[in-house]
């Protein structure tokens, strides 16, 4: 887990510079500060368990086992990226690793999670769908409709709210009637827990408990309190919070906390951890080299992947294609 957390941190720091250099476009939402949440929760998932999250997805993607190379290549929009360069930072996915994306419409992936869990339940599988979302996402209708449906249909979903205290610039207190997100579960009679999100060991324990609860009794809402050290995305004026507040939180940096845990224990020495950090640095540089040397998607790719099935032959003969009808 230490390797994982440091990898997320370093890869994103590198991504931030690549963004400044204009090599990464679109929006870039950094997970820095929240690494313990994705790492700790995904540490306890079984291979059959599906994972889905929002656009702040680099950490979750790496924790699901996607290589730094594939992630970095997607950020650079290369054909070797997780989504062939078509999705970008907000849309990483690798269904072979049961990671179902990165979704950019706030709250819209909650119904998707409910549906995937419905399919697993229908097939009699014991898989659980782990759905991450932010505090801000709990105010949109999708949250309500999805949690209600998961209860009445007993869908195996672990709802994980990453409460980082803000949705963009709006604090939980200003956007939500209740500041403890877990309380919303009471409105559905759904078992729930609010836990510490900066200490990966505590996160893992909470995830273990709640995942077991889902497998035996159905949906569960796990709220993990965390904090993003960086702006919402690149170029956030951050008028909504003080640097003192940010600093205070940075004092319990999830990586620092975990490092102290590890060093406290007898078996691990500080220099081993340093060696680990060095390996991560190499891994990130290798990923950047790989991404930069990877080919861009071919021009034809523009019209690929839109439909699984080719259009009925006759349509091709309509010469509007020539005028760029593409798949229409």
């Amino acid at each position: 887990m230490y390797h994982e957390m440091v990898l997320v941190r370093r890869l994103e720091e590198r991504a931030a510079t690549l963004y400044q250099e204009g090599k990464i476009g679109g929006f870039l939402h950094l997970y820095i500060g929240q690494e313990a949440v994705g790492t700790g929760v995904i540490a306890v998932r079984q291979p059959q368990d599906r994972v889905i999250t929002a656009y702040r997805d680099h950490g979750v993607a790496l924790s699901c086992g996607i290589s730094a190379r594939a992630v970095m290549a997607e950020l650079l929009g290369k054909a070797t990226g997780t989504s062939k360069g078509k999705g970008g930072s907000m849309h990483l996915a690798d269904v072979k690793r049961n990671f179902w994306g990165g979704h950019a419409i706030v709250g819209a992936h909650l119904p998707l999670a409910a549906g995937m869990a419905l399919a697993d339940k229908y097939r009699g599988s014991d898989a659980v769908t782990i759905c991450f979302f932010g505090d801000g996402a709990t105010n949109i209708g999708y949250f309500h409709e999805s949690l209600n449906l998961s209860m009445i249909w007993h869908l195996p979903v672990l709802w994980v709210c990453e409460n980082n205290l803000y949705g963009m610039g709006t604090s939980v207190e200003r956007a939500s009637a209740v500041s403890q997100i877990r309380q919303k579960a009471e409105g559905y009679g759904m078992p729930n827990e609010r836990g510490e999100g900066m200490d990966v060991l505590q996160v893992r324990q909470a995830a273990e408990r709640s995942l077991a609860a889902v497998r035996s009794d159905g949906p569960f809402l796990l709220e993990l309190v965390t904090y993003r050290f960086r702006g919402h995305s690149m170029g956030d004026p951050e008028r909504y919070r003080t640097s003192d507040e940010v600093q205070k939180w940075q004092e319990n940096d999830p990586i620092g906390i975990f490092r102290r845990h590890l060093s406290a224990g007898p078996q691990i020495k500080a220099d081993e951890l340093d060696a680990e950090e060095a390996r991560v640095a190499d891994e990130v540089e290798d990923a950047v080299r790989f991404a930069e040397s990877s080919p861009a998607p071919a021009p034809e790719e523009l019209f690929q992947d839109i439909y699984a099935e080719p259009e009925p032959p006759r349509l091709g003969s309509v010469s509007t294609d020539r005028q760029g009808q593409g798949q229409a």
Partner: protein
Amino acid sequence: MPILTMREAISQALWEEMERDERVIILGEEVGVWGGTYAVTKGFYDHFGPERVLDTPIAEGVIVGAANGAAMAGLHPVAELMTINFAFLAMDQIVNHSAKLRSMFGGQFNMPVVIRAVGGGGRQLGATHSQTPDAIFAHFPGLKVVAPGTPQDAKGLLKTAIRSEDPVLFIEHATLYQAKGEVAEGEVLEPIGVAKIQRPGRDVTIVTYSKMLQVSLQAAEQLARQGIEAEIVDLRSLRPLDMQPALDSFRRTNRAVIVEEGWRSFGVGAEVSARLYEEAFDYADAPIQRVAQKEVPLPYNRELEQAALPQVDDILAAVQRVL
């Protein structure tokens, strides 16, 4: 060939595909115990059970969203929207998710979801419950939009839609369920994206679909008595939009009228007209005419509502304008 109503044809298609493929499930409001508000799924709940015929809460966003998720996981869900007017509450799931997830993730998975929605006016349900907004859904690449006008096509196209690995919005018309027609025996499959000549004729081309196919056929009868033979092209699907039969017909008749139930502006007729001119400009002997709904929210009062909807007489008048 056996004669079936549209309702029976759609019901048969669903039933046969559910018998054929375990991956097919139905979810929606009142599809189960009630048997479907239009009685399309009557008997399904008892036969296929609550695991495959799921009554949902009134929450269109999660109805389509859960169907999308189930499709991502490999099922072939059929989500029913009680009416297409409520599709606006699931708009984001339909146009941002059903239509886009496959390509946005580089084709890693398919979206084999069917969204059945009942549309159309003429039943005095008022402005929010009487719409025919088919064209706006057809605007989105990634989606397939099908709207049959005969029982044969309803059955054949719905079966194809359910087997399809792509997302299909399947639009039924509330006032067509009683419409009768011949349906072939045995396995009935119609291709999505292939328009069809529903009536041959040499004098004028009428391009239409769904309920207006029936109205256009009535108009053609009257025109025939006046010695005018209208050729009727049924688009059957709006995306993909197969223009070939309409183009072939127009190149022969040199005159075209497009008939749709929805509002004229930014509607189906606009696209069909534009494409006819783009492909067959030199064949046009008269300005192509559009027959469509008056641009008003449909009122409750029966006479006002009927005055707003396209009628046989409107089609006859449009044909006169092109001859």
